[in-house]
């Protein structure tokens, strides 16, 4: 009888998690995203190094811009997705929202770390320093700490509803930092340049086109990575539930 209950419980879980066979197969969307990311990355590299003109003032290191800006954009987008997924989880109490939140937090941490590193290298060439307590840099560093705090919290509390709830609350509070980062160059006097994309005549068309292709490419890469981590979360949840059933 107890085993029969376990079986029905497993069937119910499988209806949201999927059958084990489904979880081990790579989805077609992953392959499509990987192919598109590869094509986009090759095009971006070609445009960054061979198409776009060298900046008259900053010279060659200005080309860091074409990777730094999209990486930072993904770092912020990922936190936005994390916050939306967290609201979704608190509202619907569906574990799938939590998998999405965890996936976005993990990918976002990688991207914001790379944004801070590439920004630091670019800052060394243009400002002559690796780091300055500039408003945008500081608010981005705060975002990095929020991401790390989120990851530590989730790792420490394990895969429990309490962990998902606590993480969701932290993410919803933390997302306030995103508009502050975006507006920091307008609100405070900073070394960081103001937003030039979208301002007519501020950037040459080649620069805008290259940046846009790089932005799309990194967004595709983010989507690909998100799919992988989401699948991973799904399989981990299934393994944990099966473990619980046989114990």
């Amino acid at each position, binding site marked *: 009888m107890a*085993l029969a209950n376990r*079986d029905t419980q*497993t069937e119910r879980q499988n209806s949201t998690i999927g059958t*084990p066979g489904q*979880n*081990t197969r790579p989805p077609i969307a992953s392959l499509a995203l990987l192919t598109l990311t590869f094509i986009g990355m090759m095009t971006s590299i070609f445009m960054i190094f061979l198409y776009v003109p060298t900046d008259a003032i900053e*010279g*060659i*290191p200005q*080309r*860091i811009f074409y*990777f*730094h800006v999209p*990486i930072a954009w993904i770092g912020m987008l990922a936190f936005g997705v994390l916050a939306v997924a967290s609201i979704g989880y608190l509202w619907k109490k569906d574990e799938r929202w939590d998998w999405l939140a965890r996936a976005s937090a993990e990918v976002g941490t*990688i991207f914001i*770390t*790379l944004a801070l*590193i*590439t920004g630091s*290298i*670019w800052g*060394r*060439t243009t400002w002559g320093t690796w780091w300055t307590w500039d408003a945008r840099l500081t608010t981005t560093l705060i975002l990095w700490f929020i991401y790390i705090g989120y990851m530590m919290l989730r790792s420490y509390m394990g895969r429990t509803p309490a962990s998902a709830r606590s993480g969701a609350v932290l993410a919803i509070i933390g997302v306030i930092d995103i508009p502050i980062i975006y507006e920091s160059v307008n609100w405070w006097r900073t070394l960081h340049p103001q937003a030039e994309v979208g301002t007519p005549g501020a950037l040459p068309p080649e620069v805008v086109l290259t940046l846009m292709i790089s932005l799309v490419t990194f967004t595709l*890469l983010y989507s690909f*990575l998100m799919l*992988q*981590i989401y*699948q*991973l979360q799904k*399989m*981990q949840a*299934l*393994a944990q539930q*099966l*473990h619980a*059933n*046989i114990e």
Partner: protein
Amino acid sequence: MQGFIYLVSAYAIVWVGLFAYLAVIMMRIRGVRTELAAVQELVREQQEKPTTS
């Protein structure tokens, strides 16, 4: 020349970082798949037990 070194360093860090992360993801997926297969085998064994006894 120094500017070129900074440019190459920035791109190298991004590439190495992303490839390392991808490799870690692939290893984690492989690990979870192995774990899942082992747990499924245990579940199957448990399900077969009452029918044989």
